[in-house]
C-alpha cells in the first residue's frame, strides 16, 4: 500500500508541476494555442476577463444586444431616402448575412438591412422580427433565418448559457406555446448591455437562468477560481460541453412535446410571421439552415409541411448542402462560398426578391 501511495503522491506532484509549466508556457505561446486552453475558462471567468480587458480578441460582451440592434435598424430605416424601394429585412445570423451578401454581390441594386446575432437562436431572431415591425415598409422582403444547431436555444435566455466556448451575453425572450394557439413571451431580466452591467439586475438574471433556462449547466458556471489552472480549464471544457450537449439533445429529441416543443414553437412563429408580413404588405422568406452533421433538429422535415401549406417562399440549405456532405461546409461549420452562390441564386429567383431588386 505504501508503494501505491508513493506513486499516487508522486503522480499528483508531477501533475501540479506539469500544470504550472503549461501555464508558464502559455504566457509566451501563440494566440491560437492560448485560445485553445482559454475555451475552457468558466463562463463567469470569460465574462470578467472581457470586462477587464475590452481589447481582448474575441470579446463578445457588447455584440447583438437586441435594443442596440433595434436602435440601429431604426436609424438605418429613418436614413433611407424617400422613395426607397423594397428592402431585404434580414433577421438571422452569419449564415443569412453570407447568403444576402452573396446575393447583393451578384445584384448590386439589392438593398438590405437587418438585425443579426452571432449564433442567434430562433427566439432571438423572432423577437427581433416582432420588435422591429415599425421599421419595415410594404413591399419589403422579410428574410427569417433558422439555424438547426441553435434550435435548442429556444429553451434559453442567452448565448452565455449554452454557447460555452463563446458565451456572448446578449439576451432574448423564451417563447412557449399557449392554449390559444399562440406563443407566450417570457422576457429576460437583463435586456440590454446597461442591464448587464447593473449588479442588481445581473444577480436577478443569474437567478432567472438557474431556474427558468433549460440549458443552464453548473459545469459552465461553478468554481471560476479554478480558471487559473490550464488543466482545470481543459477538464471544464470537456464536462461543460458534454453537459450542454446532453441538455440540447434532450430538447431536440422532443419536437412536439416536453417543456420546449421546438417544432411546435417554430411552426407557430412561422404562422405569425406569415400573418404579420402579409398584413403589412411584405413577403416572408424563411431560410432553413441545416447545420453540418446528423444530430441537429431536422428543420425541413418538421417545418416543410407548414411552409408548403402556407405557400411561404423558403430556402432549405439541405437541398443544396446535405448535412453529411463535408464539401459543402467550411471547417468552422459555415457554408462554402459555392453553396452560398447557389442559395443566393435561389433567393434572387424568388419573384418578391426579383421585384425588390428592380
Amino acid at each position, binding site marked *: *500500500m505504501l*508503494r*501505491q501511495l*508513493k*506513486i499516487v503522491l*508522486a*503522480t*499528483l*506532484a*508531477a*501533475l501540479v*508541476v*506539469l*500544470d504550472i509549466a*503549461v501555464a508558464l508556457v502559455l504566457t509566451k505561446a501563440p494566440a491560437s494555442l492560448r485560445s*485553445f486552453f482559454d475555451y475552457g475558462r468558466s463562463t463567469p471567468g470569460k465574462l470578467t476577463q472581457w470586462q477587464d480587458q475590452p481589447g481582448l480578441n474575441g470579446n463578445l460582451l457588447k455584440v447583438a444586444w437586441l435594443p442596440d440592434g433595434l436602435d440601429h435598424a431604426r436609424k438605418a430605416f429613418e436614413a433611407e431616402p424617400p422613395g426607397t424601394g423594397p428592402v431585404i429585412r434580414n433577421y438571422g445570423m452569419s449564415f443569412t448575412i453570407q447568403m444576402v451578401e452573396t446575393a447583393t454581390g451578384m445584384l448590386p441594386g439589392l438593398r438590405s438591412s437587418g438585425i443579426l446575432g452571432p449564433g442567434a437562436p430562433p427566439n432571438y431572431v423572432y423577437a427581433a422580427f416582432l420588435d422591429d415591425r415599425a421599421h419595415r415598409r410594404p413591399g419589403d422582403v422579410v428574410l427569417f433565418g433558422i439555424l438547426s444547431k441553435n434550435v435548442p436555444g429556444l429553451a434559453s435566455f442567452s448565448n452565455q448559457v449554452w454557447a460555452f466556448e463563446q458565451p456572448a451575453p446578449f439576451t432574448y425572450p423564451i417563447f412557449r406555446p399557449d392554449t390559444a394557439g399562440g406563443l407566450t413571451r417570457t422576457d429576460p431580466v437583463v435586456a440590454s448591455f446597461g442591464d448587464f452591467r447593473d449588479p442588481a439586475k445581473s444577480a436577478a438574471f443569474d437567478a432567472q437562468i438557474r431556474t427558468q433556462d433549460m440549458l443552464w449547466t453548473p459545469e459552465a458556471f461553478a468554481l471560476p477560481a479554478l480558471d487559473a489552472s490550464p*488543466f482545470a480549464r*481543459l*477538464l471544464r*471544457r*470537456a*464536462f461543460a*460541453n*458534454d453537459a450542454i*450537449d*446532453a441538455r440540447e439533445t434532450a430538447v431536440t429529441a422532443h419536437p412536439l412535446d416536453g417543456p420546449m416543443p421546438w417544432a411546435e414553437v417554430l411552426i407557430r412563429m412561422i404562422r405569425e410571421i406569415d400573418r404579420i408580413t402579409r398584413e403589412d404588405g411584405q413577403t416572408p422568406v424563411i431560410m432553413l439552415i441545416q447545420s453540418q452533421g446528423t444530430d441537429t433538429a431536422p428543420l425541413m422535415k418538421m417545418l416543410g409541411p407548414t411552409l408548403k401549406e402556407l405557400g411561404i417562399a423558403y430556402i432549405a440549405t439541405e437541398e443544396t448542402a446535405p448535412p*453529411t*456532405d*463535408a*464539401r459543402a461546409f467550411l*471547417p468552422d461549420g459555415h457554408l462554402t462560398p459555392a453553396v452560398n452562390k447557389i442559395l443566393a441564386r435561389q433567393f434572387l429567383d424568388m419573384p418578391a426578391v426579383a421585384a425588390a431588386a428592380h
Partner: protein
Amino acid sequence: MFFTQLSFWGFFLPVLGLAVVLPRLFGPYSRSLMLLAASWLSYAFWDWRFLGLLIVSTAVVWAIALRIEDAEGAARKRWLWLSLVFSIGLLGVFKYLNFFVDSFIGLMAAIGMPVTDDWAVRLILPLGISFYTFQTVGYTIDVYRRTLPAERSFANVALFASFFPTLASGPIQRAGDLLAQIRAPRPILWDDIGRGAVLCLLGLIKKIVIADALAPQVAAIYGADPSVVGGADVIYATWLFAIQIYCDFSGYTDIARGVARMLGFDLKYNFLQPYFATSPQEFWRRWHISLSTWLRDYLYIPLGGSRGGSAAIDRNLMITMLLGGLWHGAAWNFVAWGGFQGAVQVIQRRLGLKGRKPGQPVAGGIVGKLRHIVTVALFFQVTCYGWLLFRATSFDQIAAFTAHIFTAPLRTAGLISAPPVPALCGILFLLLWDLCAETADDQRFYMRWPLAVRACLWAAMIYLLAFGATTATSVFIYAKF
C-alpha cells in the same frame, strides 16, 4: 452506460467499494453475488427487456452443461447440439434475421419479383449478444470435451456470461480463465487498483483523445458521394479509420481489463501492437486475440484445421474467416472483409511465407531491421484495404473507392482535413507506447522505469486525456457487434 460516460464511473466506484468491503464482512462468495447483481443492473440500465433473454439463455446453457457432464455417448452429443442450436439460434434470430430478410427482399427485387416487408419482424440487437453467446458456447464445448467440469453454481455461470466489464464488447472470455477466477475469488490488492487504473487511463486516451477525434474525418469521406471523392481522400480516410478502430476497440479492451483488474480478475491481452504485423497470420496473433483464438479452437480445428490436403486447409481458413466476418455484423461488407482476411491467409500459406510471432526478434542487423520496417509498412496497406471493406456502407462504395485508389491515388476532392492537435499528440504517444511494448516484448515495459519517471508518465497521460477530452459521447464501434 459506456466506459467513456461519467455515469459508468458513478456506477463503478460504489461497485468497487462493495467488492473490497463485502468479502471481509460476508466471505468471498458475496463479491461474486454482488458483481452478478451489478452486471444485471448495468445490462437492465441499457434495456431491461433484454435482461430476461440474458438470464434465460444463461440458465439454459447452465442446465444443459450439467446434463452433458452426466451423459455419455450419443446422449452427450445430443445435449451438446441442443445447447449449440439454442445459443446460436438465439444469436441468429436477434442478430441476423433482419439481415436475411433484407437480403431476401433485395434478391426478390433484383429478379423482378418485389415483395413488401410488412410481414417482417424487426428486432433490436441485444447488447453484447455476440460476445456472451461465444463465451457460453465455448463453455459448453469445453464441458463436452471434458476439458472443464460443468459448473454447479448457476450464479457463477451467470456472472461468467454477464460480467459487466466484458459484456458489451468483450474480450471474449474462456471459461477456463474467468470461470476459474469466479470459482476461486482472490482478495483485491492495492496493486490491482494501480494496474487497473493505468489500463483505464490508457484505454480512455485511445478512445477519447484519438478514436473519437478521428471519427468525423473518417465519416466526412466515407459519408461523401463515392463518385466525387478522390483516391487520396480514400487512402487518407482509411488510414485514419485503421487508427480509429484500433484505438476504439483496444481502448475498450484496456478499460475492460482495467476495470476487471480492479475487481480482482485477470483478463488476457486482446491486442499486441497489431499494426507491427508483417503477415496476415501474424496480424491475427495480435488483433482481437480472444476472437481469433476462439475461432481457432472452436471452429477452425473442429473443421479439420491444418490437417488434410492443401485444399481442405484453404477451405477451413476461408470458412473460419467468413464466419468471423459475419460475426462482426449482419452485413455483406463484413462477409467481404472476412473473405478478404481468409484470402490473404490462403495466399500467405500458398506462397509458403511463415508468419512471425509477436515479440520474435528481428534478425539481420540494420538491413534486416529496414526490411522489417518496409514489410510492416507494406502489410499495413493490406490491412487497410480490409478496413475499407469493413467501413464501407455498400458494395457500390467499395467498388468506387477501390477504383479511385488504383486509378487516381493522388487525386483529392478537398475532403482531407488534419486531425485535431490533441489527437495528433495522442497518436504520437500511442506509437511510442506500442514501440516500447514491442521492443521490450513486454506490455508492462514501464515497470522497469524508476518511480519518478513513471509518475511523470502517468501525469503526462492524465494531462493528455484532459487535452483531448472534448465531448466523448460516441459509442464504441464494437458495441454494435
